[in-house]
């Protein structure tokens, strides 16, 4: 038997090592993506349209599409997820029906997104005749996103103490008023973090979009902001390849001579965007929390 003190030192040293290794793995990952991708980045790369089989294409439209799709998907999924999370956490009785619903939502979140994408294809694209469009893609992303977002909002609600709810109720407020006026404002920082993190996942999602938003990025006219025009960036009915789909497509059937460079460049852009989301989440969350707790 080793001396407990020595044992203690060894164990804690090991834990330091493990934690260091995890940080190292991330650093290596990020380093690899950025080192292979950053040299490809230029203003031209970020703004130019892609080229099908010639070199020198950019990812401008794909980048724009990614953001537009993300915003639309969030606009659709956030209110639904919020409502469902409120019902599940604040209203639903803890019985087998609630448990079943929770389990079902969990199962949906662990389905491979390609299944969600195909469902979206058959339902939105074909059945509802929305075609390969941003709208179809946004709905598919909503499907993909809802379980995660609902769960994360529910967790955020859980972090707010029940005494806050009792405080509201004891003033003669309804549960709804208490939730919307007391609980939600207090939970905003944590909800926001959850939303932005899930936005990162949506931003990087490819498989659910291949069959819904499509894999082609028709040219856009960035001076035309009339959403009814087909070349308008705002038109939700046009097909829209996103950055993640672009990476997937280039890696599989890319025949442009600089496919590898474009794919590393796009990966770098994707990861940078997600880094940005993360930092934004942290910063905004912290600021909001400060504002709410010490006005």
């Amino acid at each position: 038997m080793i001396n407990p003190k020595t044992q203690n030192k060894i164990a804690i040293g090991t834990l330091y090592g493990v934690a260091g290794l995890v940080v190292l793995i991330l650093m290596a990952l990020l380093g690899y993506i950025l080192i292979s991708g950053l040299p490809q980045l230029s203003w031209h790369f970020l703004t130019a349209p892609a080229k099908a089989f010639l070199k020198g294409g950019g990812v401008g439209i794909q980048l724009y599409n990614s953001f537009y799709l993300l915003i639309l998907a969030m606009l659709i999924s956030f209110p639904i997820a919020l409502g469902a999370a409120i019902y599940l956490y604040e209203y639903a009785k803890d019985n087998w029906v609630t448990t079943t619903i929770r389990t079902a939502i969990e199962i949906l979140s662990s389905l491979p997104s390609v299944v969600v994408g195909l469902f979206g294809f058959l339902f939105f694209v074909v059945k509802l005749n929305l075609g390969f469009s941003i709208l179809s893609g946004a709905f598919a992303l909503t499907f993909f996103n809802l379980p995660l977002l609902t769960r994360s909002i529910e967790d955020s609600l859980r972090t707010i103490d029940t005494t806050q709810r009792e405080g509201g109720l004891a003033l003669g407020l309804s549960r709804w008023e208490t939730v919307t006026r007391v609980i939600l404002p207090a939970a905003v920082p944590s909800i926001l973090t959850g939303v932005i993190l899930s936005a990162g996942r949506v931003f990087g999602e490819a498989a659910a979009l291949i069959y819904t938003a499509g894999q082609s990025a028709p040219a856009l006219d960035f001076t035309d902001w009339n959403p009814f025009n087909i070349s308008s960036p705002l038109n939700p009915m046009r097909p829209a390849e996103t950055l993640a789909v672009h990476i997937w497509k280039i890696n599989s059937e890319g025949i442009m001579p600089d496919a590898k460079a474009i794919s590393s460049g796009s990966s770098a852009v994707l990861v940078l965007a997600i880094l940005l989301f993360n930092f934004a989440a942290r910063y905004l969350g912290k600021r909001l929390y400060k504002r709410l707790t010490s006005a």
Partner: protein
Amino acid sequence: MKSTEQLEQQLKRHSKAAKLEIWGKVVSFSALLLIVAVVVAIIGFVASKGLATFFSNHVSLWDFLSGKSWNPGVTDAHGKPEVGALPMIVGSFLITILSAIVATPFAIGTAVFMNEISPNKGAKILQPVTELLVGIPSVVYGFIGLSVVVPVTRAVFGGSGFGILSGTCVLFVMILPTVTSMSVDALRSVPRYYREASLALGATQWQTIYKVVLRAATPGMMTAVVFGMARAFGEALAVQMVIGNAALMPGSLVDPASTLTSVLTTGIGNTVMGSLQNNALWSLALVLLLMSLVFNLIIRLIGRKGRLQ
């Protein structure tokens, strides 16, 4: 008494709060209903397509689960289509279990570090690191797996480099943050006085962690691991890019193999809706769905056991 009646009237009037309450219940319930409808629709959709293999195409369930040859386009000597999903099922389980085995010590070590040893560094460095790892898209993981992990495996073990080992490496990194952050939650729920009591009895920090904190947090950490396994089981793109997609029983860790998701993702675009080949792929999706249900039930079971203790 007039005043009593008046009071009763006032108390029985439907107040604004009561109206808002009904409105709120209706709104939030319809949101939930919508999600339930979506879930039911997708599950029903997958089930109807997946069961068609057995009902319309008359493949026996046993052949599907135990057959070792996956070639739905071809019929075997008995005129039956070759839809043996065993290689994929084995591949999926193998890769899931292996990555969980590798990831668990790392995740728990990191979680203990974050929560017990250096909460300060944990919050400043490790928390953002794990959240970032969650955020990196699986396409990018696959891309890195393909350009780094596979060549390294090939250089070290020979062969093509594609296989369960490469898949495990990629999945290990992918589930690490999930398991870590859930383990942290488990550790955090261990009451502070447990630690204080143990330290007060003269135990070292490690003894406290090992004998008290980890013991108390075991159900929570088991949940975390199962949760990570569920994620690994359902991951598609990244695994598909590095596992090699050979519908063969895996002979060794560096031979190409396949998982349910990789075969599903690879094949679904190349088959015709409604044909046996297509239905067979949906049957794989159905297996995925059922497995996800099983993982969920396990998590619930652990949770219940944890509560009983």
